């Protein structure tokens, strides 16, 4: 059976405008929840990029106790060199450390006046063989417990912190998105039910003269789809805005070196938009199907 395009368009438009407050409410809820879906994807991708950057070339620094004797230093050195998980350990002596220190605190004269080469711990710059976060973290924990080791510094600590934070934010976003998606589904469902209820006499006549269920259903389903898609398009816009906003935020925070690695590239944005789009379609078609099903029982 040919479905008259003109008829479908007219009916869908009438449905959408008849109950404008409900329509706007569902579009806005869809928009907010899908924006959060987009944000969840962006944060996840950003966090992934962040850890990936640190996956390669991770080294850590083992600081030796400042008052360690030569033999104690040699012990640490042997332990590092004999460790099968370590590719290379370079010793940084007092003078070199002091040079670095001077570089780091350039301009801060009180600091430079009060600290001499003897006050600084010497250190080993260690290059592990396997540079995955987990392995490096294992080595770091091991050397922390060794005698004569003053402190072990590794980027993995910060990465772990960052990961913990982004994981938390991600969970928060995920649950908010889940709840809001449920709310949008129910709102779309309710909007369509209301539209069908308002037109129950027409639907009754349509069934009596032999209109097929799909013919009756299509305008209502399109109504739901339009609501979902408008919300989705707004959410995609929000994702692009959010990307610019994050970029700006990162530019301002130059000092936070680690945050610089929290990058979001175009493919991430595209992926977020794709997810938003798919969710919009599934959500609206699903809720429309449920909403129209019960009403059409003869």
């Amino acid at each position, binding site marked *: 059976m040919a479905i*008259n395009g003109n008829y479908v368009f007219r009916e869908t438009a009438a449905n959408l405008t008849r109950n404008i407050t409900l329509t706007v409410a569902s579009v806005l809820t869809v928009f907010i929840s899908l924006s959060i879906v987009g944000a969840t994807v962006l944060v996840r991708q950003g966090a992934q990029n962040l850890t990936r950057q640190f996956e390669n070339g991770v080294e850590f620094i083992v600081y030796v106790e400042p008052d360690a004797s030569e033999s104690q230093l040699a012990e640490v050195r042997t332990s590092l060199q004999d460790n099968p998980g370590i590719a290379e350990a370079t010793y940084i002596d007092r003078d070199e450390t002091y040079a670095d220190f001077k570089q780091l605190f350039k301009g801060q004269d009180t600091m430079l006046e009060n600290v001499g080469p003897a006050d600084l711990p010497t250190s080993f710059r260690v290059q592990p063989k396997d540079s995955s976060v987990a392995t490096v973290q294992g080595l770091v924990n091991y050397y922390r417990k060794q005698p004569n080791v003053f402190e072990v510094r590794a980027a993995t600590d910060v990465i772990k912190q960052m990961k913990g934070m982004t994981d938390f934010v991600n969970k928060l976003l995920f649950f908010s998105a889940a709840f809001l998606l449920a709310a949008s589904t129910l709102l779309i469902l309710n909007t369509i039910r209301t539209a069908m209820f308002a037109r129950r*006499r*027409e639907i009754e*006549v349509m069934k009596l003269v032999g209109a*097929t269920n799909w013919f009756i259903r299509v305008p209502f389903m399109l109504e739901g789809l339009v609501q979902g898609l408008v919300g989705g398009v707004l959410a995609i816009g929000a994702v692009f805005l959010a990307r610019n906003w994050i970029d700006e935020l990162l530019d301002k925070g130059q000092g936070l070196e680690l945050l610089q690695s929290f990058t979001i590239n175009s493919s991430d944005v595209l992926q977020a938009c794709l997810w938003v789009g798919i969710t919009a379609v599934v959500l609206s078609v699903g809720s429309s199907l449920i909403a129209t099903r019960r009403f059409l029982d003869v």
Partner: protein
Amino acid sequence: MIKLENVSKVFKGDVVALREADCEINKGEFVFLVGPSGSGKSTMIRLLNKQEEPSSGNIFVAGKDIGTLNSWKVPFLRRNIGCVFQDYKLLTNKTVYENVAFALEVIGRPRHVIKTQVPAILELVGLAKKHKNYPDELSGGEQQRVSIARAFVNRPLILLADEPTGNLDPATSVGIMRLLDRINRTGTTVVMATHDRSIVDTMRRRVIELDRGSIIRDQARGVYE
């Protein structure tokens, strides 16, 4: 055209609306269903276009067992069955023309068909001049004519009428009956449930009388009682 075999309909709470009904209605017949309220007339009509399912027994319409009909085929069955009700069931936000055209539009008839069929049927029911009016601007008799036009515009094989004159005065009812008679003479089978004694007695058509769900009389050229 229509055949009921041992058809019963029991509603929830053991309310028997129809009890082992057997009857056969041929193509082109005009049949009155008579009996007091609650005797099963409306149920019988609602069973014929599958608005209700029988509790037991078989119903054949146009040679098909409608009990075994797939649910997606029901709309196509209904395209062969026009329906007229006591309360007209017109759409108040549509004009006379739009109400009739709606019936064709929603079964996917092309626009040029609608443009020729609707004026023709409005001419037949005598409402050509009122095609732009809304239902609440019409008298009861006129509204029922619109309803008949809508039921007949698709040229169905069967016309079911559930107390079509129930809300009308005797003079208006006569006009409606003339119209139904005309439709019947085009070959359409008409099944009409009614309480109206004088109509049944003047028309002298086949009468099926129901009492508490059972067919107690089936008489050709019958009277109300």
